[in-house]
C-alpha cells in the first residue's frame, strides 16, 4: 500500500498537462497589420469628422449671451461701494442692459458667472461639513473640524452652514427685465428652483429636523456665516420651502467649480407663465437689475450674467466639435501617411526572406 502510494507520489512529480500550466491556453493574438490598422484609422478619422460636423451643426442652434457687470454701467458705483468693508451692510442696486439680436429659442438658462474665483483650492474645498448639510442635528451644533477654525464657530456659537464655501456664497440677486419696444418693461419669469442636481436637492442636502420645531427654531442655537446678511433659514424670502440647507442657491454654490472661471445656474426661464416667453426670449432689449452684494475686487475677479440655450447635448460649447473635427482630420491624414509608408516600405518589411 505504502509503496503504491509512494509510487503514485513519485509519478505525480510530472507536472499536469493542462493548457494553463503548459502556457498553451487558447488565445487570441492580435497583431497590427495593414489590413486592420489602416481601415481602422480611416474609419476612425471619418467618424470623428462626421461627429464633429454633427456637433458643430447642433452647436449652431444654441446661443449664449455673456454680460460682464462687475463695474459696467450703473454697477460701477456699487463696485466702488463694495471695495470697502465698512460698506458691507449697505445695500446697493444697479442694473445693466443688453439686447438680443435674435430670439433665444427654447429653454433659456440664466447664469451668473465668476472669473478668478477659486472654488477649487484644497483648503477651500475641504472646508465644509456634508454631515451638517445632510441635516444631522449633532453636526449642526458641532460642525466638523474640516470647516476650519474661522468658519466653524463665531464667538462660540456653531456656524450653520459652516465652512469657507458656505461663507463665501455668492449673494447677488438678479431680476431680468424685457423691454419691449412699445410696452413698459416686463419682468422675465424665472424658475429659481430645479437649478441643482436632483440628488443634491433631494438626498445630499436636508434641513435638520426636530419634531415640532420650525426651521428658525432648529437653527436657533447657530450663527449665520460671517459674510452672510441673512441667516440660512431666510435665504429665500419668497418660498418658504426653499430655505435652510435645501435652498437651491446654496446647493448650487456648494457644488464647487473645478476651475477659477465658472458660471452657475441662477434660474430657468418660465415659459409657461407668459405667452411672450413661450418660445424663449424674444429679440429685443433687456435689463438686469442687480442687488450688488458680492465683492470681487479683492481678488481681481469679475462677475457676469450669462443667458444660454441648450441642445440635446447641452449648452454652447465650441471646443468639442472643433476638437472632433481636428482629431478626425489629423487621423485621416495619419492614415494617409501610414498607407504611403506601408506601400513603400511595409510590404517588404514584414515578409520573411524565404
Amino acid at each position, binding site marked *: 500500500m505504502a509503496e503504491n502510494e509512494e509510487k503514485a507520489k513519485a509519478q505525480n*512529480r*510530472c*507536472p499536469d498537462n493542462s493548457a494553463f*500550466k503548459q*502556457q498553451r491556453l*487558447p488565445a*487570441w493574438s492580435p497583431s*497590427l497589420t495593414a489590413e486592420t*490598422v489602416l481601415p*481602422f484609422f480611416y474609419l476612425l478619422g471619418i467618424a470623428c469628422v462626421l*461627429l464633429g460636423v454633427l456637433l458643430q451643426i447642433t452647436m449652431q442652434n444654441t446661443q449664449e449671451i455673456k454680460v460682464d457687470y462687475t463695474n459696467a454701467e450703473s454697477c460701477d458705483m456699487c463696485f466702488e461701494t463694495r471695495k470697502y468693508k465698512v460698506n458691507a451692510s449697505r445695500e446697493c442696486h444697479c442694473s445693466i442692459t443688453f439686447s438680443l439680436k435674435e430670439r433665444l429659442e427654447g429653454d433659456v*438658462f440664466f*447664469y451668473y458667472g465668476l472669473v*478668478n474665483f*477659486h*472654488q*477649487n*483650492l*484644497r*483648503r*477651500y*474645498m475641504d472646508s465644509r461639513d*456634508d*454631515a451638517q*448639510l*445632510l441635516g444631522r442635528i449633532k453636526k449642526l451644533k458641532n460642525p*466638523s473640524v474640516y470647516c476650519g477654525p474661522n468658519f466653524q464657530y463665531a464667538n462660540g456659537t456653531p456656524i450653520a452652514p459652516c465652512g*469657507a464655501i458656505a*461663507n*463665501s456664497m455668492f449673494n447677488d440677486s438678479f431680476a431680468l427685465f424685457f423691454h419691449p419696444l412699445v410696452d413698459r418693461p416686463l419682468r422675465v419669469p424665472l424658475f429659481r428652483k430645479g437649478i441643482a*442636481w436632483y440628488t443634491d436637492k433631494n438626498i*445630499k442636502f436636508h434641513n435638520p429636523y426636530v419634531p415640532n420645531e420650525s426651521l428658525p427654531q432648529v437653527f436657533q442655537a447657530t450663527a449665520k456665516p460671517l459674510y452672510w446678511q441673512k441667516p440660512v433659514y431666510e435665504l429665500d424670502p419668497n418660498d418658504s420651502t426653499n430655505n435652510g440647507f435645501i435652498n437651491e442657491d446654496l446647493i448650487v454654490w456648494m*457644488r464647487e*467649480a*473645478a*476651475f477659477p472661471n465658472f*458660471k452657475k*445656474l441662477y434660474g*430657468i426661464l418660465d415659459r409657461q407663465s407668459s405667452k411672450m416667453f413661450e418660445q424663449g426670449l424674444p429679440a429685443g432689449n433687456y435689463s438686469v437689475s442687480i442687488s450688488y452684494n458680492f465683492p470681487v475686487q*479683492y*481678488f481681481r475677479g469679475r462677475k457676469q450674467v450669462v443667458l444660454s440655450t*441648450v*441642445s440635446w447635448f*447641452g*449648452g454652447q*460649447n*465650441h*471646443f*468639442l466639435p472643433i*476638437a472632433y473635427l481636428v*482629431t478626425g482630420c489629423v*487621423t485621416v491624414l*495619419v492614415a494617409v*501617411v501610414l498607407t504611403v509608408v*506601408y506601400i513603400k516600405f511595409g510590404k517588404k*518589411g*514584414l*515578409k*520573411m526572406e*524565404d
Partner: protein
Amino acid sequence: MFKEKPPPEEERKVRANDREYNEKFQYANNCIMTSKYNIITFLPVNLFEQFQEVANTYFLFLLILQLIPQISSLSWFTTIVPLVLVLSITAVKDATDDYFRHKSDNQVNNRQSQVLINGTLQNEKWMNVRVGDIIRLENNQFVAADLLLLSSSEPHGLCYIETAELDGETNMKVRQSLPVTSELGDPNSLAQFDGEVICEPPNNKLDRFCGTLYWRENKYGLSNQNMLLRGCVLRNTESCYGLVIFAGPDTKLMQNSGRTKFKRTSIDRLMNTLVLWIFGFLVCMGVILAIGNAVWEKEVGFLFQSYLPWDPPVDNFLFSAFLAFWSYVIILNTVVPISLYVSVEVIRLGHSYFINWDRRMFCQRRNTPAEARTTTLNEELGQVEYIFSDKTGTLTQNIMTFNKCSINGHAYGEVIDTLGAQPKRAQRLDFSFNPLADRDFCFYDQNLLDSVKLGEPAVHEFFRLLSLCHTVMSEEKSEGELMYKAQSPDEGALVTAARNFGFVFRSRTPSTVTVQELGRSVTYALLAILDFNNIRKRMSVIVRNPEGKIRLYCKGADTLLFERLHPCNHDLMNVTSDHLNEYAADGLRTLVLAYRDLSEQQWEDWAERRRSAERAADYREDRLAAAYEEIEQDMMLLGATAIEDKLQEGVPETIAILSLANIKIWVLTGDKQETAVNIGYSCKMLTDDMSEVFIINGHTVQRVREELRRARERMIESARSREGGKEGVMDWAACSLENGFGGQSGEQGGWHPQQEEKPQQGSPPAPALPSLLDSISGEYALVISGHSLAHALEADMEREFLDTACACKAVICCRVTPLQKALVVELVKKHKKAVTLAIGDGANDVSMIKTAHIGVGISGQEGIQAVLASDYSFSQFRFLQRLLLVHGRWSYLRMCRFLCYFFYKNFAFTMVHFWFGFFCGFSAQTVYDQYFITLYNIVYTSLPVLAMGIFDQDVPEQRSLEYPKLYEPGQLNLLFNKREFFICIAQGIYTSVVLFCVPYGVLSQATRNDGIPLADYQTFAVTVATSLVIVVSVQIALDTGYWTAINHFFVWGSLGAYFTILFAMHSNILFSIFPNQFHFFGSAQNTLIQPVVWLTIALATVVCIVPVLAFRFLKLDLKPQLSDTVRYTQLVRQKKRKPGGRGGRGAHGGVAGLGGGALGRLGRAGSRRSGYAFAHQEGFGELITSGKNMRLSSLALATFASRHSASWIDTLRKKKQQPPQPGGEGSPASSYTAPLSTSSSMLGPPDTQAEETGNTPLGLAPSGSSSAVTPTPVRSPGGESTGGWVVSLGAVQVTPTASAPVSGLTSRISFHV
C-alpha cells in the same frame, strides 16, 4: 535559542563516548537550521526586514506625512491600504518560503543514523547526534557529520567514499582509519574507546584536517585521510564506525555552504535606478509646484484671503509653499507606485511556476521536474550572454561505453552508421553464451562476435590486452556476479567490453591476473605495471602467460603509441589511423592498443635497469620514465578502441541553438585537456571548420602571456587579411589597453548577427579593435588549462585573457579548480556587463553557480549540493535551451512590457495633478476622488497588467526555438532600458496632458442639457478618472499580445470593477452613513448619463491612442523586429492554413538537425584527438601491486579459517598497517615489484617495522615485501605472495616459510573458483 555565543573556538577537544565531557564545550549539535523565522519571531523580524527596503520605508514616511493635517492632501488610507497589502503579500511569500526551509531542514535532521550508546547501537535522528558520539554507517549511506573514521568492515580500516556532493569528483576516494582504532570492529570494543581528539576548530577547508588522537597514553597524528565528511556517501564498504568531530553547522559541508548571496537582476538594478530618478522627478515636480504655490499665494491667494485665510501656522507665502511641497509629494507619490515591487514579485513568481510546471523540462527517467528555486531572477534568463558549463555530469553523463573498435585493420561497431538513420537499430548482440557477461553492455556489430567465435588471433589478442592491461579491481560477491571497481569509467568500459566478448577479467593478486578466456581460466603472472601518468599518456603491463612467454601489453594515446611501433606496422597503422580519424570525428575517445613480445633475457635486463632507476636517489621519476620508454618500443599494433563519453541527451543540438542565439558557451571542467577538448568536439562546440584552436598551456606568467598574445595576433592577422589589409592595425599592446571593456558602447554596438557569419566585404568605416575582434569571432576556440588560467587570472593579465577569450567562439578551461571556475565567471561578470549563467551538477560547481548571475544545477544526480546552491535546477542539460529561449525570453519580454506599461499608467495617472495644479492655485488639490486614488493602482489597473506580465507571449514557444535570434533583444537589453523608460514616461505625460486638457476644454464651458453647468469639480473628477481608466485599458489591450480568457476577464473585469465601485462609492447608502467620507455622492450617476461626458471620454481616448497606434504601425513597417516578422509570418501561415509549411526555417533557424554527424564527418582530416581514457590521477597501480586493497573474500577467509588457525590471521592483521599511498608516488613504487621479485636479495628490509606514526618510506616497505613474495605463481606456486593476498604486503614480518603454504592455497582458491 538565545544562548550566549561561546567565544570562537581555538581548538576542539572531543572525547569519544563521553557526552558529559563534550557538553562542557557547547559544541553545535547535528541539527541544521537554514530557516530564518519561527512563529514568534516572524512578524517583528519580517517587518524589520521589509522596512529595510527603501520603497517600504518611503511609504511609511509618506504615511506619517499624511497624518499632519496642514500637509495632508490625501486621506491616510490612500497610502496605508496599498502598504498593508504589499507588506502582507510579501510576508505571506516569506512565510511560505521559510516553511519549506523548515520542512527540508526537518527532513534532513530526521534522517536516521545508528549511534553507539552505552555499548549498543541505537537508531537516532541526525539532529540528535552529538559531538563525541560513535556512529555506524552502512554502504551507500550519507555521512551524517564530520567523522573520524575509527574502523571499517574492510581490511586495514579502509573505506571508500564518494565525495560528489562535496567537491564534485565522482571517482571514489579511499579513507583509512588509524591502525590502532581499526581493530575496534565490534560495538563492544568501540564502546570502551575513550580516545580524545584535539583538533583544529571548524573551518571550511575540505582537503585539510589536522588533529591528534590521544589514546592509551599515545599520540596519533590525524589527517584528512582519516576523516569522513558530512555529505559524502559510503561506497563499496559494508559498514564503518566513526567518531563525530564536527556536527551540524560546524561541518565542513555547512561551513562551505555559506549564506547565499542575494542575487538581483539587471532589471532590478535598473528599476532601482529609475525609481531613484523618479524620486528626483517627484521632488522636481514638488519644487515647481511649490514655487508656483509661493507665487500664487503672493499674487492671488493673498487677495483671496478674505474668503480663505491661511491656516494658523502659515503666516507667509513661503511657509505655505513649503507645506505645498510636502502636500504635492504626497499627491504625486503615485509615480513611484508602491505596488510596483510587489507586482514584479508576483509576475516572477508566476513565471517560476510556469518553469516548475513545464512538462518539456520534466525528465521522465529521473522523474524530476525543472525547478525555479529562486523566484526573482526569471527575466534575467532572457538576457544571458555567457554560459559557463561544467562538463562531467552536465554535458556528459559520465558513462563510458565501448562503442567501436578497429582490430587489425578491420573496423567494428559501425552498424548503426551503415544503416543510416535508425528506423531499425541493429539488434543488440546476444551475449548469452557467456555466463559472466555484463547484461547492461550493448554492442551491435555481429561481426565482432563472429570474429571472436571464429578465433581470429588478432581479435583474441585485442581483448586479451583489454582484460589484462588495466588497474581495475574485481569483486565477485557470488559465483559469476562480477563487479568491477574501476578508478575511471573508461577503463571500466574497456574491461567490461572484453568481459562480454569472452575475455573475462576475473580476479587479480598483486602478482597475477586471472582471466577467463572463452570459458577457460588462465592466470597470467603480472610482472610489472608501467602505470599511466600525464606525460606518458599510456600504460603497459608486462605479463607472463601460462606458457611462460613474456609479453608487454600497452594501451595509450595514438600519437605516442604510433611512434613506438615496429616499422612493419606501417600499413596497418595507416588503416587504423583512418579509423581513428573517423572515431575522433564522432567525438569518441580513442586508445591504441599494442603489444610486444619480450624474451626472458630482455625482461631480465630491463628489470635490472628499472630497479637501478628505482633506487636512484635523484631524478628517480625521470629515470623511471626513461626505463619505461626503453621497453615500450617496437610494439606491434593490435588495433584501437573508441569509447563514447556519453553526452547527455541533446547536448550538441542545445549548444548549437544556444550559440545561434548569440550565447557564448564556456566549458569549465576539472577534466584533463584531452577529455575536455574531446567533449568540445563531440558536442560541436569545437568543429573542424574552425580556423584554429588555441591551446594555452604555459606554466609561467611569461609563457601564458606569450601564448595569449600569439593567439590574438593570429586572429587579428587573419581578420586583417580578410579586410584586405586596409587599415593598419595598431600594435596589440596598445589595443589591449583600449579595446578593453571600459567602452561598453563599442561592445554592444559591435555585436551584430551578420558580422559573425562573414566578415563584411565593405569594411566598416572605422573599426575599433573590439569590433575587429568581434568580427573574427566564430572562427576560433581557446583551450586553457588550469595552471595557465591561474596566471591568466592575475590582475595584470585578466583583461588580455578576457579579450582573447571573448574573441573566440568557444572557450574551454580544463583542469580548473572550483575556485578558478568562480574566478572566471567573476571576471566576465566584472568586465563584460553581460549576464552570465553557470550550470553544473557537482559541488565543485557550487562556487561558480553562486557567483554567476544565474546558477543552474543539474538535479536528479546523487549530489545535490549544486542544486541547493542553484537558482534553477533540472535534470538535463538540454532543458537549458527551453529555460533560456522560451521561459527566459518570455519572462524578459513580459517583464519589460509590464514595466513599460506600469510606469506609463502611473505617470498618466499622476501627472494630471500637476496640470491641475496650475488651475487650483497650486493648493495640492487632487483631481480625483480619494478612493479612486487608493484603488487605481491596486484594483482598477493592476490585474490586466499582471495578466499580461504573466501570460503574454509574442510568438509561440516553438518559434523561439526555431529562431534563436529572437533571443537577441534580451541580451542587448532592448526592450526595457533608460531610453524605453523615457519613452514610456513621455507617453504617460502626453496621456496626462490629454486627459487633463480635453475634459478641461470641454467641461469648463459645457452645460448639461438641463442647463446645469458641467464644470463642477466632481463631474470633472469623474470624467477624468473614467477617461483615464478607459485609456489605460485600451493601452493594455494594445500591449497585450496574447489574449487568453484570463486577460479578457481581467481587462473587462477591471473596467467593470471600476464602474461598479464608482457607483458604489457614489451611492446613497455609503453617503448616508459617512457623509463626510463619501461626499462624491451622486456624481457618477449625474455625470455618466451626460452625452457630453462620453463624447469627452471618447475624444480623450482617441487622442491618446491614435499616436501610439500610428507609431507602432510605423515602427512595424520601417523597423520591424524579428519577433514582429515571426508573428506576421505566423499570421499569414494561419490564414493560408498550411500547417506543414515552415517558411522561414531555413533563413533563421536551421539548427542542429542538419548539422549532426554526417556533416561533421566530412573533411575532418588531421583533427584526430586521442581521448586518453584513463583516470585523472595515476592509477590504482600501486595499490594493486602492494595488494593493500585486496579484499579478503569471505570464501577465502572461510578456507583459511578451516585450515589455519585464526590467530595466524590475527597476527597478520595486527602487523599489517601502512596507510595507503596517497596518489603521487605510486607508479614507481608499484612498478618495481616485478624486478625485485627475481632477486631475492631485497628480502624484507627490517626497518619497515610498522611505526605508529606511519612515516615509513612507503615506496620501500610494500615493494620490499612484495619483492619477497612475488615470484610468478605459476612457475613457483609456492610463491610467498600470500601475505599480500590476505592482508597487506606491508606485512613485512611475515616470514616466507609461514606464508608459503598459504600462498599455494590462496592461489588455488583464486585461480580455480
